[in-house]
Structure formats: C-alpha cells, structure tokens
C-alpha cells in the first residue's frame, strides 16, 4: 500500500493525521456546510446580515416548507424524475444491446462503429444544439420531458456503449462459445447467458447516468421552457432570479435539488465508483 499505512508510522505522525483528516474535510466541504447552515437560518438573520455567524433561530421546517409552498420546486423535482428515470432505462437498454454486439461479434466496421460511439462522448454539446432543438421542435416534443429523454438516451448511448462493450469483452468468452455449440440462438445467448452476467455493469451505469442526467442544466435550458417540464436544475436557477436576497430559500432549494443524486450516491456508492472509474485500472 502506498503511501505507508499510517498505523506503521511514528506516534506523532499518527496523531497529526487524525487531526488533519477532519480539518481538511471541514475545509473541503466548507461551502456546502455554509449552505446547510443558511438553509435553516431565519429571514431575520438574513435581513440583519448575519450570514456567517451562528443562526439566532433554526427555521428548518419553516424554510423547507416555504420552498415547497411558494415555488414550483415540487413540480420541478417531479419533472427531473420524469426525465431521469426513462433516460436511465432507455440508455442502459440500448447500450446493453450495442455493447453486446460490439463485444461479441467480429464483423467489418465493428471497431469503426465502436469509435463512433466513443467519439460521440467528447463532442461539445454546442455543435448539436441548434439541429437537436430544431428536430425536437419538428417532432412536436419541444418543451416536453419526452423531448429531453429522447436526446439524453441517444447521447448517453455513446458513453454507455463504451462501458458495456468493455465490460462484456472482459467476460469469459467460453460461455458464449459453449452455448453456441449447444445451438442456442444468438438472441437467447444475449438474454440468458450474457445479460445475467451484466448485472453489476447495469447497476453501475444506472447510478452514473442518473446523476449525470439529474444534474444536466444545458439541455434543460435548450429544450425546455415551461415549468410543467423544467427539471430542477434549470428550475432552481430561475427561482434564484425570484428569490433575490432570500438566501435561506435559495440554500434550502439547492439542498432539496441535490438530495436525490446524493442519496443515490450514498446508497449505491460501490456501483457508482465502479462506473466512474472504469478504465482507471487496467
């Protein structure tokens, strides 16, 4: 293990480490802690300019209730789910198939297709913006969650294909060979042999895509306008315009908006990191 495990070092170093760890953590998260503290501040504190001192009152319930009562943030969050969940399902489903095809079959253009999906990941969104917006308009899906879902599914398929293809490549190919010798059809091989082995990859990708899509802001501003379809990221920004100087509400709103991906991360940490760090080890 590198660096040297702390328990093998001298006592002062150990003590130092144990002090340094929480302090560094505190500094690292200071901006977030400030937001949390502000989200429970009373309006009086905000007006009196007590932004950084200890709150005189803890208005936890009041502030969070106020956020839900005098803003459409509940609707925004619901919209975010309406965008995120279908996207996760769609992108993972498509990429299970594309990944399988690219990993298992040898055919002309295989590598080329694979590279097409990979390259798609790195494309600056801006080059897609005008045509995708037009296309969505023509489909009549502008300003709907469905319009966002279709685009996200298509775009995420690039990254997911890279992920799935590499994952399946690493599976023992003998399993597929054996099934073929048995005469099992290709579709059944996919469904009954490979798919069950892909569970960890599916879990990892789902968590990852959930976070990416939940946090998307750019496409939400490009493809959606009205509050009936606006996801919480873009919604929060428009609320920021209304809640001028009501920082306790902005903070509470921010925390509410951040909660689902954070919860997802803590619940599925192992999968999340597995997904993110694919390729970091070889």
């Amino acid at each position, binding site marked *: 293990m590198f660096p040297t495990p702390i328990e093998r070092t001298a006592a002062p170093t150990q003590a130092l480490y144990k002090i340094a760890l929480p302090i560094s953590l505190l500094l690292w998260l200071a901006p977030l802690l400030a937001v949390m503290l502000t989200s429970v501040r009373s309006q009086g504190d905000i007006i009196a300019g007590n932004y950084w001192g200890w709150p005189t009152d803890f208005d936890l319930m009041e502030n969070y209730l106020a956020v839900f009562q005098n803003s459409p943030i509940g609707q925004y969050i619901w919209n975010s789910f309406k965008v995120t969940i279908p996207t996760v399902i769609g992108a993972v489903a498509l990429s299970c198939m594309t990944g399988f095809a690219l990993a298992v079959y040898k055919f002309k253009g295989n590598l080329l297709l694979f590279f097409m999906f990979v390259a798609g990941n790195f494309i600056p969104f801006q080059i897609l913006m005008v045509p995708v917006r037009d296309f969505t*308009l023509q*489909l009549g899906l502008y*300003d709907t969650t469905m319009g966002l879902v279709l685009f996200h599914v298509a775009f995420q398929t690039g990254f997911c294909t890279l992920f799935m293809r590499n994952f399946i490549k690493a599976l023992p190919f003998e399993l597929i060979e054996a099934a073929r010798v048995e005469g099992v059809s290709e579709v059944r091989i996919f469904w009954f042999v490979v798919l069950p082995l892909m569970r960890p990859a599916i879990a990892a990708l789902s968590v990852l895509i959930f976070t990416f899509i939940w946090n998307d802001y750019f496409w939400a501003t490009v493809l959606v*306008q009205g509050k009936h379809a606006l996801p919480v990221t873009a919604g929060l920004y428009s609320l920021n*315009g209304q809640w001028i100087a009501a920082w306790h509400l902005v903070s509470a709103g921010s925390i509410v908006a951040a909660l689902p991906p954070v919860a997802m991360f803590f619940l599925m940490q192992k999968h999340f990191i597995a997904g993110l760090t694919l390729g970091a080890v070889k």
Partner: protein
Amino acid sequence: MLHRIATTFGAAAIALSLTAGSALAGTLVINTDTSNPAPKAAFQALIDGFKAENPDIEVKWNLFDREGYKTSIRNFLTAEAPDVATWYAGNRMLPYVEAGLFEDVSDLWEQEGWNDSLKSAAASMTIDGKKWGIPYTYYQWGVYYRKDIFDQYGLSVPETWDDLLAVSKTLKENDVAPFTIGTKFLWTAAGWFDYLNLRVNGYEFHMDLTAGKASYDDPKVQAVFDRWSELVEAGYFIDNHANYSWQESLPFMVQGDAAMILMGNFAVAPLREAGLTDDQLGFFQFPEITPGLPKAEDAPTDTVHIPANAKNKEDAKKFLAYVARADVQTTLNASLGQLPVNSGSERPDDKFLSQGFDMLSDAYALAQFYDRDAPAAMAKAGMEGFQEFMVKPERKDAILERLTKIQQRVYK
C-alpha cells in the same frame, strides 16, 4: 434526410394524439409572460372578467416564465400558435412581423376607434404602416429618490444637469452614494444611456441611432458619454455594480447607503416591500441637460398580439377589443401597478403612477427603451459597452469604436 423522415412520422403520431384535445371550437388559447406575482394576479382577473362577459368562450391560459417566454415565443408562433400572445412594442416586434407570424390588426384599430383612444402608443405599434397588435400597459422611467435623505442634507429635486451634479456632490461628501445601480444584466446601464441621450440630443437622435441612421462615432454620442463620465469618474454610482442585478442594488437605497436610482416604476413595489414608506420615497423626472430641448421619456409598452397561425381569430379579436377598453385597462393596470394606455382610462390613485401619468401625458415623445428600439444584436453589444464604460470609463474611445464597427455589421 433521415431527420425529415423521422420528423414526418413523429409529427403524424403527435398530431393524431393531440387533435382530440386542442382544436375545439370556441376555445381561446392565450399565452402570456406574466409570471411575476402582480402581473399574474392581474391577468387572472383580466381573463376572469373576459370569461364573465363571454361565457360561451372556453379560455385556455398558458402562463410562461417571463425570461423563458422570450425564447418560447419563437417556437410556439411557428409550431403550435396560440390565439393570443403577449409581447413588446417597437423593434422587438420586427422579427415576427417580418417573418409573417403576427396578424395585421389595422382594421380593428380603425373599427374600434383605437387610432384615437390608444393614440399615444400608435407609433410604436406600427410597422410598414400597419398595426400589429394592441398595447395594454406602459410605465414611466425616472429617478426614484430618498426624500428623507434629501431633507437631511437640505437638498431639493434637481431640475438641471448642474443641479444633479451639485446634489450628487453633497451626497458623496456625506458618504452617501448618489446613485445605486446593478448592471449585471446590462439593461439598467442602457437606461442611463437612453436618458442622457434623450436629454442631450433628443428623441429624434435616439430613434436615428437605434435605427442605424446615426453612427456611434457621431460627436453627439461623444457628448452623451462626456456627461456620463462626469458621474462615473466622480464615483457617483455605487461600487461593484457589475456584481448586482437591479433587485440586489435596491438594498443600498433601502439602507440609506445610496439616495437615488434611475429605474422603471416597477422598482416601487420592491422598495415599498423592503420597508420604505411613501414619505421616504419620491420620484422626479430626469433633469434637463440641453436647455430648451423638448423632453421625451422612456415608456416601455407591453402588448397583445394575434399570431398569424392562430386557429380562433374571431374570439382573439374579441379578446383584444376587451383588453383595449378604457375600463378594463384601468382595472388591469391598477393591479399591475402600471399605467393604462387608453386615454379614456381613469387617472391612477397611486402617488407614483399619477406622477408618471402626468409626466407621460406631457412628454414630447415616448421611446420604448434602448434594447427594444435597437435590434437585438446591436442592443446586446451596446449594453455591454455601456456596462464596460461604467466600470472602465477610460476605455470610452475603444468602446465607441467597437460599437461603430458592430453597428455597420448589424445594419448592413
């Protein structure tokens, strides 16, 4: 190619699923950008009133976010047009008029006698000699000030440029910033440019400049910036104004750190909400600069239009006629906190509105606002230049040079 095929399929499927609900006869679809609390309530009342008088018309009201609406309108006018849509007068209508997306309502103006009753806004509703909608509200711009602070230092309302400089000097000496402003979203700086320009050069030059007939390297523009420098270089605006939105700039005035703000009448509501009483808050017309020059004002006008692709134009016309009515505009504007355009409407009770009403009635002419009179690309570049000037006044020449170049390109 593939796109087009997919589009056709998609559109067909969606058309099938939608026709059931949307195109019912007797349904009037209204899209508005009145998402802020007061306008929202005002429009709710307006639409309720219309329904009460026209029980056979089913009204479907789509309320859009005010900022988002500016992009949404481009889409819904082409894709699924409502029967009525709100918008703004002046150059802001031009792209839609040119693209044939607004209905010509000149005959309605004739028939309903609006050429008379809505006369003050007629010019700003006209493009190519035709009228493209009706105005329902406007509001004055001017200087809102802290009367109590003025009294404290024995100051009186400035009537001339020299008065204004003297007042500012006294305030500054007493550690009160003469003017608060938040230029983060640029247009507040354009208010200053407009007023200095209207007072130094007059209405005609404002219109020529925004229409591209006069250039930014004109000495007249120089003269505007020279006056402006006198304020900027003396430090008569609050520090760090580029960091703030206009709302964020109000607390300086509320807390007494600044004494004046050049703003539209919509600033009154938040200032009152923040605790300023009508005894503390006053309003005055922007002072005279070039002696004897007739005073024109900025009075941005909000409007209602019938999209060319509307399905129910008959009822839409009824709605326009309703909105234009004197009594309806009185009520609507009372709750908007703005001024009715119809000359038959009642004079508002509110202190600031009645002052504005008188000021605008006497005005030599009404301009829309820099970013509504100039085309979008020019407005953006111009306002960035104004903001930059307010932060770095020494760059005046470079800024004007840049604006001249951009103007040549925009108006080719």
